[in-house]
């Protein structure tokens, strides 16, 4: 059921705008895994009364969304850029199967890495998977493009990527509704389509051809009527841009003629060609990888790109001015701010002190506890991606000389363990290193880093209502890990060195769970445990 409120004008973030669009589009399901800068989309959708849930990870979220879309329902799937790496497996083949109900996938990229381990440019995924991509540049477009994404997804029966970046997700700008008209939804129901959805090679081969035919159709449509406006200006300089870079361009070069690509894949080739031919010099201004630049050059369109130094970090008005001027002189360095740190009293602190004092080789993971790398702890040696603590730790154990191998400890948080650590634990029992291994789960009963979200280990859903609770120690027991120790890193802080020393001396597999709620979440957890919110 679509619901559209009375006309209004408000100041909202891009994330809030996407949530509102999803609500107005009548999504039947919103799924994702928390990750900056995407997290608030599903939280806002839930706050508005829409259907929103956290999945164990982005791959599962995508698959649940795909199932909903197979049923003919509209679904929204949200994640940060690196989350799409995890969801890439279903994404690529969902482009073959296609969808019935609109499936919109939000990829929230983090150029400049305000809170990420890399600054990959997920526009590459649109090309690699073969899915259309919309790039909003402010909250109004985040709302309008989300609705357009549902419309395009249903018209061409393809998942659509809504690619946002930190400054679109987290900037508050004006949103007027009604905006782009809410497309009418189809009825929900199962229609069997075996060759369309069972991707055995015999069915997948024609599916790939169907996908390429759809993309060619969309490219032609994009040239005819895609959301790619030209802002007239001086014919001396033309700028092709997309997303947040458009906003910087309008300010840095107000006199320039601008082609703003809203549907930046499939490429509006003729639109770009005509635009470039209409100006004396055509420059592509984009954050991150030279994505549009390479596309234009491949199409034989004469454009200039930005100097390589502007591939790194976010753009802003100042940097765009420099790109326009071709200025490659060193940029002034701003003073470094105070780095973040583990909160005073954080239960992780005691564990990292012990790991440091025992001179462990610590393979770490993604979360607040990655801050264990900084002084005064300096107790982390690797951090790569969600779940890598376990696999990397095992690889070190397998290959280092025994005396060094016995110092290796894998450290992972509770939410990260559920996300991608369980398969690592299976690997640990399947291919145990000769020296055994020690896995530490820092269980603070929440997804702290992204703002205290629930996960399958907390026993509560996104909206904090009670549900089944995944027990890490029961999982370990089922896998046959004999040494399982659960302790409170605050109450039993004095025992931590001994617990670790004992496990490290065993040449066996050990799981150590340091269990103590995050200080910032403890109060709310207590209330929720006393008065569980019953399932609807």
């Amino acid at each position, binding site marked *: 059921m679509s619901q559209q409120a009375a006309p209004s004008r408000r100041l909202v973030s891009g994330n809030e705008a996407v949530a509102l669009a999803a609500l107005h589009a009548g999504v039947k399901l919103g799924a994702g895994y928390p990750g900056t800068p995407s997290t608030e989309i599903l939280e806002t959708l839930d706050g508005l009364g829409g259907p929103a849930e956290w999945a164990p990870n982005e791959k599962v979220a995508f698959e649940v969304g795909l199932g909903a879309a197979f049923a003919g329902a509209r679904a929204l799937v949200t994640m940060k850029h690196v989350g799409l790496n995890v969801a890439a497996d279903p994404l690529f083949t969902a482009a073959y199967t296609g969808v019935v109900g609109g499936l919109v996938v939000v990829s929230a990229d983090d150029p400049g890495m*305000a809170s990420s381990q890399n600054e990959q440019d997920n526009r590459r995924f649109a090309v690699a998977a073969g899915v259309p991509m919309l790039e909003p540049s402010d909250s109004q477009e985040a709302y309008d493009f989300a609705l357009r994404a549902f419309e395009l997804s249903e018209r061409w029966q393809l998942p659509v990527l809504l690619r946002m970046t930190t400054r679109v997700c987290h900037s508050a*700008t004006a949103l007027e509704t009604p905006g782009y008209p809410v497309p009418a939804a189809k009825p929900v129901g199962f229609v069997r389509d075996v060759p369309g959805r069972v991707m055995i090679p015999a069915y997948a081969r024609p599916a790939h051809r169907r996908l390429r035919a759809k993309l060619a159709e969309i490219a032609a449509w994009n040239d005819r009527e895609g959301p790619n406006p030209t802002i007239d200006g001086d014919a001396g300089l033309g700028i092709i841009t997309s997303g947040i870079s458009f906003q910087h361009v309008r300010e840095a070069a107000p006199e320039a003629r601008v082609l703003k690509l809203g549907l930046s894949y499939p490429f509006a080739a003729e639109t770009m060609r005509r635009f470039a031919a209409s100006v004396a010099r055509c420059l592509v201004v984009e954050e991150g990888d030279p994505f549009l630049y390479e596309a234009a050059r491949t199409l034989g369109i004469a454009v200039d790109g930005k100097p390589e130094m502007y591939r790194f970090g976010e753009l802003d*008005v100042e940097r765009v001015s420099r790109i326009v001027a071709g200025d490659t002189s060193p940029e002034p360095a701003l003073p470094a701010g105070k780095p973040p740190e583990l909160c005073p009293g954080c239960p992780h602190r005691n564990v990292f002190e012990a790991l440091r004092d025992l001179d462990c080789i610590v393979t770490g993971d993604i979360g607040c506890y990655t801050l264990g790398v900084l002084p005064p702890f300096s107790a982390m040696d690797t951090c790569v991606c969600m779940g890598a603590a376990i696999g990397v730790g095992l690889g070190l154990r397998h290959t280092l000389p025994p005396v060094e191998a016995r110092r290796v400890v894998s450290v992972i948080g509770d939410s990260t363990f559920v996300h991608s650590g369980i398969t690592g634990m299976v690997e640990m029992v399947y291919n145990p290193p000769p020296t055994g291994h020690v896995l530490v789960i820092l269980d603070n009963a929440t997804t702290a*880093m992204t703002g205290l979200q629930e996960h399958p280990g907390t026993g509560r859903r996104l909206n904090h209502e009670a549900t089944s609770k995944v027990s890490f120690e029961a999982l370990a027991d089922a896998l046959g890990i004999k040494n399982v120790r659960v302790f409170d890193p605050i109450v039993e802080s004095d025992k931590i060195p001994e617990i670790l020393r004992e496990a490290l001396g065993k040449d066996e597999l050990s799981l150590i769970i340091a269990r103590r709620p995050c200080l910032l979440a403890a109060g709310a957890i207590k209330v929720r445990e006393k008065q569980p919110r019953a399932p609807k």
Partner: protein
Amino acid sequence: MPRSETTNVVIAGLGGQGVLKASDILSGALFRAGFDVKKSEIHGMSQRGGSVSSDVRFGSKVYSPMVPPGQADYLVVLAPSQVEVARPMLKPSGLLIDPGMVPEGRLGNKKSLNVALLGVLARHLDLADNLWHAAIRAALPEKLHAANLQAFAIGKTP
């Protein structure tokens, strides 16, 4: 102030000081006054006690949500330790508003420093008090209204 030009405000401090709440209130008051407003900030790692800053830009039409370095007309800093960190954001002719401008003894609750410094900023912006008050009420739970309206008044009164 002339509406044709964009005015830039940067609010800086440490995680937990209410930098983002202050920028919510400021942008809310400006939006209520009919300006085009954009507010931009970084979440995530910054919440763990590190440096936090938020940009608020307003005028008749604002494009980029980010204040370029050296372009802030007003720099509001909540923590003395962050003044030098944030100073490069300020225009040479810009105004620095620091915690020293609200004598500590005058504030009932130190947690309201963010709103008190908005009061100091309000002396320089041509916005009616009722817009500020409405923005404060919209951004904070009801039990904090009285203390923060008072903090705003303390900052606003030289």
